[in-house]
């Protein structure tokens, strides 16, 4: 059991190997074999994650830090004690993420075998997917910020490659795909800037980037010590032995005895030798007994934060000093910037809708279930920062709540007005990520993670379902065209297999896709008893508690805004069901769409099953009926070992009125959507029903235009950026510095002066001056003579340098004053 965490490097290694095999031998493999290798690697990784789960549950929330073999550290500068290792962490939080990534990931791999069938780049596709898994697992198992950042950028790279996977399609679509890929990478880089700044500050504040050192746990005050003692193999054994032999009193004295005192106990367990001489253990033991503050150098980032926050420490950054608490605030804000990039929050969410250019399994895996949740994950991982800040009177919680809730509402609203089946889901994903971020904002870390898990399942289901629909409609379209005679080519170019107006009535043609899609929709809409009901309800209940019981502004905001967003969710999802599956087919393609093959349907069925049951992992206390059947708050008790606190409102009894409000609102939205869209039969190019009405017309158009975010960014950032680039490159650098300053001003000016001088004065004088500069210059001048105006230019340039030097000298005092003032 204790040795199980040593398997964690394999979780990364297996998909990495899968990727390498497909990269190097993919071209020689049969298509099905690249699929098998990809799926096998993913499933194997899932099995290892399950083993790690048994470790965490078996040790009652134990955590382990693992140094992978073969790589001896990473970034290490010995003289200054900079030491950042390739180090992994197995705890309940990382195991949760591993299970989501590899579990959902495996199903999507299986599905992709069917979806990508016949594509000429199948090996490359599976190589990228496996590579993505490897990076994502680096991200979630990292034990320090820098290794997390490797995963963070690595998944960004895979996202870039997979969004642009079809860049070789005909113009302009291929170009659009590669544009989307580039946009995703660059927008994410803006977020990465935040994370980088956070890391620099963390290093100078804590001297380390490690989350926790081996044996540490995050709980508040001295708790992590107790946990350390409990979960350290040797100590636990010793204490049991001691307690059994001599009872409680002796046990107490033992705790304060130095490490080597219990000679017999050490001997008895010498096979666990590595912990026996742990300096951390000795130090903690000593300080624990003396009731002192711990030597913070022995703790990771979060342990130190717990120790130092609020003590009035200052942090020295060399040229400036900041109060410790303020530094933590800055770090949290920089991290938040990173989160808005990766988890697609305001203001950096704009890349995600475009990212739908990638193949649908990619959208399901990367842009719905896993990668985009990395931001929520890092916030939950950094919960110590947020918790301390919130308790220290900083409003960081409110800021995060505003970002999350605002995103949830905005994206939910935009989703109401979209025609593209995947685009609706994309905005829905942004909106649901907003729910999670808002949950972190109000301190409901468990609820955020719970929603992350359930959302991963049912949003993957919905994306894969939409892939099945698109696949079917495309096939139906080709089928319809084989039977029509001539003149169909122009039509083919115009046909959009993702426009919901080209669909309708698919429930008859694709029954299994329909049923599973319906389950996913109900889960997302938060209808009882599907998964989304439980997780969304928990966020709302927590928000209500924060607001109405504890009078926190963030709680009020989150509760009110998220409730509206939830109503939007139910509405746009039911609109989708009506347009895609109900009514009659509105195009030939939809009439002839075939049901997808088994390779695609089996993952849909499995995900549908989990969309129903996954919510039961965290049933609230005293829920009618359910409490008797399921363990209550099981997920919370599992996760709390990775969190600083799950106190406050986060272990509430089931609140019937909140659940009731949310449920009634959801059902009402569905009914309204049904009434609005059922039987209207919107065909291709037709206007939306809402667009006909007076008041709703403007609202629909705004949603349809996506609130002009893209246009806004193009006008405010992109175009000025490009114009300034052109100005700097053409006017400043080329015309002025290169042509005017050098070629015209300096060269021509001194050609003239040189000519004037060379006539009245003997050339010998000039030569003499040159000689006076020394033999080396003369040698150089010899070289110069080979070009026509050699040494005239030489002097020209000397003078040029002089001029530049004078300019710099004149400007320098100002700059230095400015800089001194700034620092």
């Amino acid at each position, binding site marked *: 059991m204790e040795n199980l965490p040593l398997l964690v490097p394999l979780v990364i290694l297996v998909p990495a190997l899968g990727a390498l095999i497909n990269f190097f031998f993919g071209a020689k493999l049969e298509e099905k074999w690249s699929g098998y290798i990809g799926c096998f690697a993913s499933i194997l990784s899932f099995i290892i994650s399950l083993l790690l789960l048994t470790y965490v549950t078996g040790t009652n929330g134990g955590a382990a830090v693992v140094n992978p073999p073969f790589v001896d550290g990473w*970034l*290490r500068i010995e003289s200054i004690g*900079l030491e950042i290792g390739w180090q992994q962490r197995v705890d309940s939080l990382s195991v949760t993420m591993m299970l989501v990534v590899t579990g959902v990931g495996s199903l999507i791999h299986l599905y992709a075998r069917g979806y990508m069938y016949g594509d000429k780049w199948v090996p490359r596709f599976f190589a990228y997917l496996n590579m993505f898994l490897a990076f994502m697992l680096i991200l979630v198992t990292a034990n320090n910020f*820098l290794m997390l950042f490797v995963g963070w950028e690595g998944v960004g790279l895979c996202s870039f490659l997979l969004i642009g996977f079809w860049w*070789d399609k005909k113009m302009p679509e291929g170009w659009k795909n590669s544009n989307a890929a580039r946009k995703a990478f660059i927008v994410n880089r803006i977020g990465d800037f935040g994370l980088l700044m956070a890391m620099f500050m963390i290093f100078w504040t804590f001297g380390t980037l490690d989350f926790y050192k081996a044996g540490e746990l995050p709980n508040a005050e001295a708790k992590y010590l107790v946990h350390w003692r409990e979960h350290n193999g040797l100590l636990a054994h010793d204490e049991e032995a001691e307690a059994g032999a001599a009872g409680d009193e002796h046990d107490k004295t033992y705790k304060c005895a130095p490490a080597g005192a219990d000679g017999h106990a050490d001997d008895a367990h010498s096979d666990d030798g590595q912990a026996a001489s742990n300096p951390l253990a000795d130090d903690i033991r000593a300080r624990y007994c003396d009731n002192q503050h711990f030597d913070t150098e022995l703790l990771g980032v979060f342990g130190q934060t717990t120790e130092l926050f609020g003590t009035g420490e200052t942090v020295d950054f060399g040229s400036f000093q900041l109060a410790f608490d303020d530094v933590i605030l800055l770090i949290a804000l920089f991290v938040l910037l990173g989160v808005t990039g990766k988890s697609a929050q305001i203001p950096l969410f704009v890349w995600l809708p475009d990212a739908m250019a990638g193949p649908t399994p990619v959208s399901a895996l990367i842009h719905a279930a896993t990668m985009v949740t990395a931001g929520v994950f890092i916030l939950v991982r950094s919960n110590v920062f947020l918790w301390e800040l919130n308790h220290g009177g900083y409003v960081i919680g409110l800021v995060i709540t505003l970002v999350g809730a605002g995103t949830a509402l905005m994206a939910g609203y935009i989703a109401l007005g979209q025609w593209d089946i995947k685009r609706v889901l994309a905005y829905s994903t942004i909106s649901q990520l907003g729910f999670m971020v808002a949950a972190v904002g109000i301190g409901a870390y468990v609820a955020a993670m719970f929603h992350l898990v359930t959302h991963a399942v049912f949003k993957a289901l919905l994306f894969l379902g939409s892939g099945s629909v698109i696949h079917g409609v495309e096939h139906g379209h080709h089928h319809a065209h084989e039977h029509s005679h001539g003149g169909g080519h122009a039509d083919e170019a115009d046909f959009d297999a993702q426009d919901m107006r080209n669909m309708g009535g698919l429930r008859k043609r694709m029954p299994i896709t329909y049923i599973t899609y319906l389950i996913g929709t109900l889960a997302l809409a938060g209808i009882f008893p599907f998964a989304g009901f439980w997780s969304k309800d928990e966020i709302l209940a927590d928000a209500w508690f924060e607001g109405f019981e504890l009078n926190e502004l963030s709680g009020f905001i989150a509760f009110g805004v998220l409730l509206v967003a939830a109503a939007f969710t139910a509405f746009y999802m039911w609109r989708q069901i009506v347009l895609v599956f109900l009514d009659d087919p509105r195009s030939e393609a939809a009439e002839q769409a075939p049901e997808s093959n088994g390779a695609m349907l089996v993952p849909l069925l499995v995900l549908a099953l989990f969309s129903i049951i996954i919510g039961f992992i965290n049933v609230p206390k005293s829920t009618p009926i359910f409490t008797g059947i399921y363990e209550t708050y099981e997920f919370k008790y599992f996760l709390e070992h990775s969190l600083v606190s799950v106190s406050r409102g986060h272990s509430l009894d089931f609140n019937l009125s909140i659940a009731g409000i949310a449920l009634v609102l959801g059902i009402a939205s569905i009914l309204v959507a049904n009434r609005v869209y059922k039987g209207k039969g919107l065909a291709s190019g037709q206007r939306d029903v809402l667009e006909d009405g007076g008041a709703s017309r403007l609202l629909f158009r705004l949603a349809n235009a996506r609130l002009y975010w893209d246009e806004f960014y193009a006008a405010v950032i992109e175009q000025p950026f490009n114009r*300034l*680039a052109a100005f*700097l490159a053409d006017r400043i650098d080329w015309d002025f510095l290169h042509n005017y300053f050098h070629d015209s001003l300096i060269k021509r000016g001194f050609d003239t002066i040189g000519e004037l001088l060379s006539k009245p004065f003997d050339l010998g004088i000039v030569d003499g001056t040159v000689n006076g500069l020394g033999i080396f210059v003369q040698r*150089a001048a010899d070289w110069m003579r080979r070009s026509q105006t050699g040494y005239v230019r030489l002097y020209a340039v000397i003078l040029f340098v002089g001029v530049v030097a004078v300019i710099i000298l004149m400007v320098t005092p100002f700059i230095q004053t400015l800089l001194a003032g700034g620092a």
Partner: protein
Amino acid sequence: MDVTGLSLTTITLFTPMIGLAILLFMNGETHKANLKWVAFATSLVTFVASVVMWINFDPSSPGLQMVQRNTWAEVSLGDSVINVSYFVGVDGISMLLVLLTTFIMPISILGSFGSHIFEERGREKLYYIFLMLLEWSMIGVFVVHDLIIFYVFWEVTLVPMYFLIGIWGSEERIYAAVKFFLYTMAGSILMLIAILYVGNRSGTFSTYSAGGDVGVIERVQSWEGAGTYWDAVDPEADGDEAGFLFNSVESWLFLGFLVAFAIKVPIFPFHSWLPDAHVQAPTAGSVILAGVLLKMGTYGIVRFNLNLFPEATVAWAPTIAFLGVVGIIYGAWVSYAQDNVKKLVAYSSVSHLGFVVLGIFALNAQGLQGATLQMVNHGISTGGLFLIVGMLYERWHTKEMADYGGVWKAMPLFGAISLVISLSSMGLPGLNGFIGEFTILLGSLGSEFLGFAFTLIATLGVIMAAVYLLKMFQHVFMGELKKPLSSDDGYKLTWSEKAAFIPIIIMIFWIGIQPIVFFNLLDVSVDSIVALFVR
């Protein structure tokens, strides 16, 4: 310490000269096919020699190793007679840059195999002779520790590069070659004046101590009298600290050296020669220029400015670091606006070397170690990028981005390699570029001399790097193939092209995943410099 015997440093330094001698005696017409092999073999032997040096190098011992010192000439300056000596040896920083030089050289020779320029311009023998001369002089710059000899090597590097650009360059090669020569020369003259002053006042041109002579650096650093060493040797020093920047000898000497190095690096706004030289140079020229020659500037700053003029360094640090930060952003922005692939890569050097300058003037261990490693990283990544551009040009005979597109589809392996090198250049973690940039920025935030804004703005450069490199990658490698080649064979990479990429890719991953080896090499040497700036 044996200071007169034939040291490993000397052997490595003069190996290229043996190749040069062999080439001189070969008949350029009858042995045409063998010329490149002689050059390649020589560069490989030089590389092996430098690796032997590396194996013999003890990273834990401070000071120079594998030293050789012979008196070469006596110069009388004014009343005093000063020895000029052949004084070579390496510390960690020199060692790393020698390795970079000998590593880049065989790659750039491989990159010249089968190039079309010889069909057009001929003179293959001369070409390889210049490459050998270049390698000799570049290694010389990194290993000599006598100011006069340093200056000689520094100037000699100009000659082969001048002809490489001037003879085998593109259309405007003469203009570019002359401009390159004059720009660098102009700066060097200021350095020469500073060198002569230093030698005259201190009585020695040796920078380090050897064989009983006390080097200038030690004299400066162990000075215990009033004021600084330079105040003491300057008869007119008034000790007025208020006007230090422009009234002190030390400050002017600092600037004399700095201008020479700043032009070489190039630090904004001295970069105007760079796009011309890079764009016009043949592939091997660009690779060496970006890979090694620019590093001579940053090396010079670390070796001479920091060691000889610590007071002036501190006084000037914010200003120079500010220029570095401006270079990061300006270089990236201008690079983004280019339509010419080679120019885009050329300007990216301004941005990348801005990071190096920032790291140096952070004046702490993180900054300096990161900066030194980043010199190597930039050599590998940007050298690789110029190889890519060269291979594209060999096939399509254009440097305009608009003429490309879809190259990845036609040349899948080449596309994948180019992606890795581009990613390394934009600092993707796990690859080499990231290690350097991260350490530099880490150093800059904790620097005692630079404020928060330096790091904040410089880090924005990380975003910009993605912007311009992805622009290049998308336009060249993605989209539709605009100009299919006449024969499909043209799409295949030749063995020499593959062979040139393999070591680059290996180094990209090696430094990215296990940089410890290289940091170890630098640790002690950098420490001795940082010790000057601990307040």
